[in-house]
């Protein structure tokens, strides 16, 4: 449909702009991906939960009832309070308090922030490195391909946890404990990225191999455009789907890895606790009856990871209709 | 036309794919018969419904595809409403099928011998050694040298052409009455195509099997088939003896198809092509599905859908051959 010229006295933007907006977005809302989304209540729920958690994390200082970083607000008199609904609980502390008198709900919201920050950073780094490696490997082939893929093989045998543990162990002999604590968050991000880049690299490499022999790449050579440039322009859009799926599922793995490392005590330090750190701290009190300190962060962690996994699973099936 | 018994009869077959926007009709009101010892060619562009028809006959439509109407009869017995288990017994034993790509049709993890004997022993109560002997004979029959040695080899040790021979042996191993060959040579080297087609035809004659040969290649049909059905957008456009259809096509679409075959000795310029492309199944126009591309279109084609009309030895779904509309066009002129 050809948009008709608007008369001069009409507000210049509105109809044409909206129509263009509609034309551009119609494809998406009309498309199969959105359709399968709108038909899956579980996926919508997962999406809502994920989004709610993202926003809670980003706006933590405004969302959380207390600022757990503000040491002045802590009062040891308030320590060990159970959740509001159990006997001895107070309405002020909905999910109770920990051994320092910190509000558990606030600690969880701030913890979510750290967990998501580490998870996202790790996945983005992995996706970047993996995509570049995959492109290079697939495009150049030969020994470059062989070397990259061999590194990937070896990499696969060393899970993120081992890598992080080893780096932390080395750091412990070389740095002061303060420097080590500051350094930890980067170690974790690096370890997560190091264990996750392989999936991205393999997918992008496969797609690159397919595209490499297509005629437009050969044609690009003939007209003097560097074929690698062409590849990037054409391969990247093609692998966006799979990369997005891997990234989503990787985010779940990354969040779990961070929690696990923090639980082992090699993760982010207690001064800046993530969900995993909270569970570890709470675990010491689990058997003496103060279950809320570890169970609530644990539940939050599981819900977050479950929601992200659900989204990833759905995305994979929606983008690959053959599997349905 | 002949006094031979029909082996396969398809009557008003309709195949639907229910999807969220409604029902997609992939095969619409298709009827044909294949007689004993006869090769029926089925041609058409991809998406015309020829493979769907084949899959429907052998009962292997991929869900959600389903037979929504019509009947399929094998030797006069209905097979489209059989239970899955009864239909399984029909497959392989009474109807065999050959697929397009020999490289992917064979299970890579089993020897060809195992795949042959498994098929033989599924349908016939014979001993292992007997089944093996039959398998070796079959391999020899399809022209595989040193079958005693080759029988214990794996598919990857055969070339593409050799693999398609094995596939044919597998389809024929319990002497089915009917073979459905779905693009059996498309994936092969041009140099091998002719051999395979010749082999398929000879073997089916020897084993007394009727053939439904699905292809988009008019050349293959011209060489092999006795009769041909031309499909367009899920329906048969024209059906008749090969010679008549090629020499004297009745449907404008068939004429276009014939015009696009290169003939040795003619100028290349004279190769014609049909304007436009086949409509998607979701957008089949009102009236005759071919009307937007038809060079001889007139009013009625845009409104009414033609059924097959007898024209000489062939039948064509075209209003040009309806006596009533013929008069009308004359009157208009």
């Amino acid at each position, binding site marked *: 449909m050809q948009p008709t010229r608007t008369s001069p006295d009409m507000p210049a933007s509105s109809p044409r702009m909206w129509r263009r907006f509609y034309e551009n977005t119609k494809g998406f809302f009309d498309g199969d991906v959105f359709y399968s989304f709108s038909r899956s209540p579980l996926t919508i729920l997962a999406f809502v939960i994920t989004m709610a958690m993202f926003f809670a994390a980003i706006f933590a200082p405004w969302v959380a009832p207390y600022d757990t970083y503000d040491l002045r607000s802590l009062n040891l008199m308030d320590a060990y309070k159970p959740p509001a609904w159990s006997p001895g609980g107070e309405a002020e502390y909905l999910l109770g308090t920990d051994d320092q008198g910190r509000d558990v709900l606030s600690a969880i919201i701030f913890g979510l922030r750290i967990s998501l920050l580490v998870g996202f950073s790790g996945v983005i780094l992995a996706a970047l490195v993996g995509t570049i490696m995959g492109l290079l490997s697939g495009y150049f082939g030969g020994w470059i391909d062989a070397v990259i893929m061999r590194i990937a093989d*070896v990499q696969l*045998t*060393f*899970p993120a*946890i*081992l890598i992080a*543990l*080893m780096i*932390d*162990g*080395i750091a*412990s*002999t*070389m740095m002061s404990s303060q420097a080590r604590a500051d350094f930890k968050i980067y170690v974790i991000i690096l370890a997560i990225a190091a264990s996750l880049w392989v999936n991205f690299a393999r997918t992008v490499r496969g797609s690159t191999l397919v595209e490499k022999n297509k005629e437009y790449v050969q044609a690009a050579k003939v007209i003097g455009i560097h074929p690698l440039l062409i590849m990037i322009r054409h391969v990247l859009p093609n692998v966006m789907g799979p990369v997005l799926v891997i990234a989503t599922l990787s985010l*779940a793995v990354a969040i*779990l890895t961070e*929690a*696990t490392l923090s639980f*082992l*005590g*090699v993760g982010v330090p207690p001064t800046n606790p993530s969900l*995993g750190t909270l*569970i570890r701290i709470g*675990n010491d009190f*689990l058997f003496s009856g103060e279950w809320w300190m570890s169970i609530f962060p*644990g539940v939050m*962690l*599981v819900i977050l*990871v*479950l929601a992200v*996994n*659900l989204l990833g*699973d759905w995305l994979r099936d929606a983008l690959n209709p*053959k*599997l349905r | 036309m002949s006094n031979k018994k029909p082996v396969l009869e398809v009557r008003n077959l309709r195949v639907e794919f229910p999807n969220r926007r409604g029902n997609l009709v992939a095969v619409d009101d298709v009827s044909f018969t294949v007689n004993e010892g006869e090769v029926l060619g089925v041609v058409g562009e991809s998406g015309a419904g020829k493979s769907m028809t084949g899959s429907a006959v052998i009962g292997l439509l991929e869900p959600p595809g389903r037979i929504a109407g019509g009947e399929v009869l094998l030797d006069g017995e209905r097979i489209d409403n059989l239970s899955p288990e009864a239909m*399984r*017994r029909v*497959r*392989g034993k009474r109807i065999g*099928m050959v*697929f397009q790509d020999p490289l*992917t*049709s*064979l*299970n*890579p*993890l089993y*020897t060809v011998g195992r795949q042959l004997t*498994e*098929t033989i022993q*599924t*349908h016939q109560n014979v001993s292992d050694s007997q089944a093996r002997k039959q398998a070796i004979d079959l391999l020899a029959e399809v022209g595989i040298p040193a079958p005693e040695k080759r029988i214990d*080899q*794996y598919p*990857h*040790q055969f*070339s*593409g*052409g050799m693999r398609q021979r094995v*596939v044919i042996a597998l389809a024929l191993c319990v002497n089915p009455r009917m073979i459905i060959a779905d693009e059996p040579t498309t994936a092969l080297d041009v140099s091998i195509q002719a051999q395979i087609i010749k082999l398929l035809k000879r073997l089916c004659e020897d084993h007394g099997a009727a053939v439904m040969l699905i292809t988009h290649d008019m050349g293959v049909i011209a060489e092999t088939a006795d009769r041909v059905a031309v499909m367009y957008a899920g329906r048969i456009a024209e059906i008749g003896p090969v010679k008549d259809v090629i020499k004297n096509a009745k449907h404008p679409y068939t004429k276009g198809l014939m015009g696009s075959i290169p003939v040795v000795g003619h100028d290349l310029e004279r190769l014609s092509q049909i304007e436009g492309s086949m409509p998607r199944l979701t957008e089949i126009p009102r009236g005759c599905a071919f009307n937007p591309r038809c060079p001889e279109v007139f009013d009625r084609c845009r409104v009414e859908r033609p059924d097959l009309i007898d024209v000489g030895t062939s039948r064509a779904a075209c209003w040009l051959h309806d006596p009533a509309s013929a008069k009308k066009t004359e009157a208009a002129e």
Partner: protein
Amino acid sequence: MLDFIVQRLVQAVFVMLTVAMISFSLFQFVGDPVNNMLGPEATAEQRLAARETLGLNDPIPVQFTKWVGNAVQGEFGQSYRMGRPVSDLIAQRLPATLELVAVSALIAVFVGVPMGVYTGLKRNSFLSKIFLTVSLIGISLPTFLIGILLILLFGVTLGWLPTFGRGGLTNIGNWETSLLTARGWSHLILPAITLALFQLTLIMRLVRAEMLEVLRTDYIKFAKARGLRQRSINFGHALKNTLVPVITIMGLQIGALLAFSIITETVFQWPGMGLLIIQAINFGDIPIMSSYLVLVALFFVIINLVVDLLYYVVDPRLRIERTAGAH
């Protein structure tokens, strides 16, 4: 066949040498061994003497060769913290970890594969949907949380099973095993399930995906067109073809089991290699760390060799060279 094995062995040796190099540099350059042995009060002369006796003044390649020579004989030096030979410490801890990992791997494979096959074949059945939902929760639960919850349920609330350490041990030579007594098993079962659960769900989902993939292939369609029995198609043709990718992943996952055993051992205070390495890391006990690295690499290399050999058994395309001249 021989070519293939030799090639794989060469690769294995190459990987081991690389890891040995990393391990050696850890050992030699990261922690100062002299400082660690003599303490900060030692005089300069004592240090020099120690350097001489330890061979630290030799050229690096000589040191490396010596180090590898020692490592091959199982000699990794002394633990800084415990003052005992690392080899003794490892020998003492190894059985606990190997038993834990082996039992977990068996649980993961023998429960995960059948569940995967079932959900792949009966895609729309009610039970499949339950399996899939449970599996999704399974991969969303971190191992340490599973451990904590199991302890809470079976140890604290129900009081059925012990929640930490090993017990009911029997000695077979130098090998302390928990597999021979009921009490040994009662200690083993919770950690083993904890460790297995994540891998189990992973294997199940993988087998299901592979099964769906294979069921769509042309050779399965052709098998159907030949009227083969459904049973034979599902288990003879389809399952066997899913094995190759499944074996690959399982090989890798057994490696992951070793890493995750660190977590399980921490939660259950299971006295294996995992606890040893966690303590070593916290104290910067480099000899233990570097030897652990070598050991883990060795473990992976062995697993990978076994996986390669299994490929050989399953896939004839590797077993037989392509016939020359055929197409």
